[in-house]
């Protein structure tokens, strides 16, 4: 039960209690002139309702978030520990970690068996029937998809928990990009596409930031670019005295201007705009932009659509170079 209905219920109790006390001389009857119960019981009941109502009202303002957690759906006391939203979020994250791991096992088996099958077929006949190879490639391709989906869910749960303390690990952005490109190279190759990456300067050095956030943002951008590229994806790292930039570019058909404003909305996909069947969750870019904002950076997009011969889409992630923990920011 949320705070608002609880407060309304408390107010009803207060009003009912007050009415009981006020009206008791008119409505009630004295039980015994000699005893404590000389006053009408209705006054006692009204008094109790009044106190209870006031207590709930006071608590709902003084301890927001605690009282609703103490009640079940029907509004009855659950008897369990009080859960703040942060506590629920922590429990959800712990649950998800276990769930995540359990899903990892069958996925490892599926991918492992697929690779084994490929090796057996190659050993038997030297080559694999192209149709069979296509099927095996399809299984292999789903690995990174699945990993990114699970990873997006995990980050989403963390984001729901509210702002996390900022991190300033020493990170080599060139290494992060290199690893992501290596992960997607095979997938892109199977689709007849190429990923090219480079950094300027060639020795890019380190920055102080949240390495896992950078990896997550760039992975989402590269995943998107590989899906929508015509043939080429480029990832370029550059820097200026205060920031570093990761530009992920693809030579796809481009994104229409009227879609660009919704691109980072949670759950938005081009299919949802066209009311087609959704093929993606619409979470990746929302998560990427939210993470960029939390790193004091930003994620922007520009696109030129076909039939312009220069049709493309480019995402630009800019993040501060940061400074080591305890040092003043650049």
């Amino acid at each position, binding site marked *: 039960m949320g705070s608002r209905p609880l407060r309304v219920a408390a107010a009803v109790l207060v009003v009912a209690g007050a009415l009981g006390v006020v009206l008791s001389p008119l409505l009630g009857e004295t039980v015994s002139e000699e005893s404590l119960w000389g006053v009408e019981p209705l006054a006692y009941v009204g008094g109790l309702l009044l106190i209870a109502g006031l207590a709930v009202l006071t608590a709902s303002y003084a301890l927001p978030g605690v009282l609703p957690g103490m009640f079940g759906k029907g509004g009855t006391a659950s008897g369990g520990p009080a859960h703040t939203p942060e506590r629920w979020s922590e429990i959800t994250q712990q649950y998800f970690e276990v769930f995540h791991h359990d899903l990892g096992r069958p996925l490892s088996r599926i991918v492992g068996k697929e690779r084994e099958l490929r090796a057996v077929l190659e050993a038997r006949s030297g080559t694999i029937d192209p149709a069979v190879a296509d099927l095996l490639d399809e299984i292999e391709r789903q690995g990174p998809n699945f990993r990114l989906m699970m990873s997006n869910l995990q980050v989403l749960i963390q984001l729901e928990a509210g702002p996390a303390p900022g991190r300033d690990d020493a990170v080599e952005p060139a290494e992060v990009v290199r690893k992501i490109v290596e992960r997607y190279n095979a997938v892109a190759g199977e689709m007849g596409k190429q990923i*090219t990456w480079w950094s300027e300067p060639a020795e890019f050095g380190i920055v102080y930031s949240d390495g*896992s956030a950078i990896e997550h943002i760039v992975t989402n951008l590269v995943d998107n670019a590989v899906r929508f590229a015509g043939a080429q994806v480029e990832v370029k790292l550059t820097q200026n005295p205060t920031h570093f930039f990761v530009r992920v570019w693809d030579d796809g058909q481009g994104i229409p201007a009227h879609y660009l404003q919704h691109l980072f909305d949670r759950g938005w996909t081009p299919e949802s705009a066209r009311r087609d069947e959704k093929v993606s969750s619409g979470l990746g870019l929302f998560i990427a932009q939210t993470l960029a904002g939390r790193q004091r950076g930003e994620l922007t997009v520009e696109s030129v659509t076909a039939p312009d011969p220069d049709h493309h889409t480019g995402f630009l992630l800019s993040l501060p170079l940061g400074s080591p923990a305890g040092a003043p920011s650049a």
Partner: protein
Amino acid sequence: MNDARPGGSILIVDDEAASPLVSAVRRGLEKEGWRTVVVEPEEGWRSGEDFEAAALYAIEESRPDGVLLDVRFGDHRDDLFKGLDILRKIVTEHPKLPVLMFTQYTQGPDRETAVRSTLRWDAPVDFIDKLASPEEVVLRLRRLIGTAPEVIRVGARITLNVSTKTVEVAGTLMSEISGMRFEILRELAVAWYRSPGQLVPFATLERYSEGEDARASLRVRVREIKDALGKALGERLGAGDLIINVRDQGYRLVPKD
């Protein structure tokens, strides 16, 4: 001439060394020329402690060039992250030995960061998802071990010998590719070897060109390299073959075979 293969040995420490996933990685490593030594569970081994002792013993015995180490050992609660204990011992006793940790994809970068913070800052340790393709594992090991081989094979027929500064195509020495032309090809081959897909920016390559218009001079040299290689290969190498100009940013190598 040395063989282009990395040559050294990799020690694999994994309680599921016979699993299809690890077998595929072993095949990938062996295909690249690495010799693999596996620490497998033996009868009577009950815990991660046995693996730890066997792994450290195997390192002393086989003196590998690198170690591929799993994080998890079995399902016993005490051994869930036994690999990290083994890692710390290896880093302490063999601080220069490169170790690539096999993580479950569930363990993620946060855990990597936590583990790194407990190690020496310069420890040659990296982490890779167990679901990574065998090619990705090989690439990561290459970089971790710092293998910059004397001989780089670009595709099936082109071979660069970095120490003698010579190029061979199908066994025939190419005298045309020497001096600056060799350096340009070497830059491209090393970048490709370390990370297929990595472009070498013009700024890096223009060091190997002359004249007022360094870009134009570079373009001529690249054309000369392609013509010479194409002639030796018996095919005309077009704009999209072997060495490509990526949107006027730089060049990258794209071997066909």
